[in-house]
């Protein structure tokens, strides 16, 4: 059954903080709910109904394509995202954050041996660390 888009789920007579008019008779709300739906239903003609729909991958592609095209604020955000990712991967990761073990050792055996060396003190070493941190 079609329900008008402006009709609340429960009756207007029941006091509810979600309704347009505050229950306690407070200040007038800033706008009156409009009865018109935001978009009238599209009437498909007989020809439309007979025309084959595009394949699912095509429809998905168009969905994303049209979505990105209609972005406004999102475009600026995507630019920032790409700049951030570029700086992180092309600059920071490449020049300043190499994976220490991956770049210095060629296999897991060597990496394990290196870490084991780090975990076990040198026989001649002294424990002369600074007091506290």
């Amino acid at each position, binding site marked *: 059954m079609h329900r008008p888009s402006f009709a609340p789920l429960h009756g207007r007579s029941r006091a509810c903080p979600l309704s347009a008019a505050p229950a306690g008779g407070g200040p007038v709300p800033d706008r009156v709910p409009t009865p018109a739906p935001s978009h009238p239903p599209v009437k498909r003609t007989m020809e439309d109904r007979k025309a084959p729909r595009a394949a699912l991958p095509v429809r998905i592609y168009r969905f994303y394509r049209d979505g990105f095209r209609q972005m406004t604020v999102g475009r600026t955000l995507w630019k920032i995202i790409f700049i951030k990712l570029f700086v992180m991967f092309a600059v920071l990761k490449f020049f300043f954050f*190499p994976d220490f073990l991956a770049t210095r050792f060629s296999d897991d055996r060597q990496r394990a041996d290196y870490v084991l060396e780090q975990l076990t003190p040198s026989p001649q070493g*002294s424990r002369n660390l600074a007091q506290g941190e």
Partner: protein
Amino acid sequence: MIESLDLGMVNWARGQFALTAMYHWIFVPLTLGLSWILAFYHTIYVRTGNEEWKRLTKFWMKLFGINFAIGVATGLILEFEFGTNWANYSWMVGDIFGAPLAIEGIFAFFLEATFFAVMFFGWNRVSKGFHLFATWMVAVGSSLSAVWILVANAWMQYPVGQAFNPETARFEMQNFLEVAFSPYAVNKFTHATSSSMLVGALFVLSISSWYLLRGRHVLMAKRSIVVAATLGIFASVFTIFNGDESAYEIAQVQPMKLAAFEGLWEGEQNAGLVAFGIVNPEKKVYDTRDPFLGFNLHIPRLLGLMANRSLDSYVPGMRDLVYGNPEQDLLGAVQKMDRGKKAVASLEAFKEARKAGDQAAADTHLASFNQYKEFLGYGYLQRPEEAVPPVALSFYAFHIMVGLGTLFPLIFLAYLYFAKKGTLADRKWLLGFGTITYFLALIASQAGWVVAEVGRQPWTIQGLLPVTVARTNLTTATVQTTFYMFLALFTLLLIAEISIMVKQISIGPEEN
């Protein structure tokens, strides 16, 4: 090697991780919390068909998207730091973290990202039901992402389901379910999620309060507040309960952390909970100075209830945990260091025997290592006092978090009360205060992580790997350089990104 360690490098590496993690955590709780609030707004729109609810939902969805986009990739830096600054740690936990982080990346992220696009692009293009489903899936996906990261962090605090393999120098997972569903992990997830809901609710409250103060978008603001405050009440109660449960878990597996954030230097029977106090910055675990300066307020016996679920229980203090307490059957760091050094010595002997090809000797030393391996981390401490984390920072962070967390439900109740009376827009004092509550929520949320991570010191993995061993052997200058780079880069990005958010807030929801 340990003896050539530059402690300055360790501290700069810790500082860098803290900086980048806190930057990441500016955006994550809002994503986690606002995604659920958005799902409720969207549900109300679909149930009522009211275009005002659609306008409201689209507005908050836009802000959600901005926050999400800003936060994208902030977590990647942390992964970079693992490989560069914390190479030993990264290698040693690879087997444990591999599964949770892989699940997070493959499952949760794709779920979130797929439905994210449907949520934003789907208005008038997909059915209302599927569109609503997508919004709920974004909330679910965000939380599922959080699960696996929090499981990984929980394991660092309470390393269960593993066994250290000296052959590979790795902690190897023995029981995935034990890791994924450890009580520590479950509490950490529920607490992080519910507290993030608070952050989301207060974000809505703050912006809506600002609109009401300016007499703009009044209906939208009121409706937003009512739903957010209602959810906020439930989130507050849940956060308090699971926060208490988290404290109980901490008392069982990280008693030093609890002692630090309560400023409990000497263990006590019937210990009281500190409601207010100024910790003595000069106090050390081995001296007899007063733990607090001036006035301090304790709630009697409550700490025992929180820590052990018993009003009459003994709660160990930092001194007990450093030097031991035979009367209470407590091993201190002193005793654990003795066993830990045996573990390290056995590990070294195993290494040498393996190098020499002496399998029999290697097996013997391996057996000895296994006898003491649960104290491995203590074998690397130089002094037992190193087992004490930064007390002042832990104490203040905990009390700021709890104090604000206690305030938030009162704020939500006040908003709902005046909204019910229909006089909310007239309460300028409440609305004015409300505009800053989001920042208070951020402070509380960050403070919680300070408690978790500073209270964990000196451990990267509780009791098994101190930060001094977890790090890569780099120079201090290397880490300093990247620290200042991050500071500059993130500050610039934050200014640019927040300006986008502020602009959209000032524009407000789209007009019909």
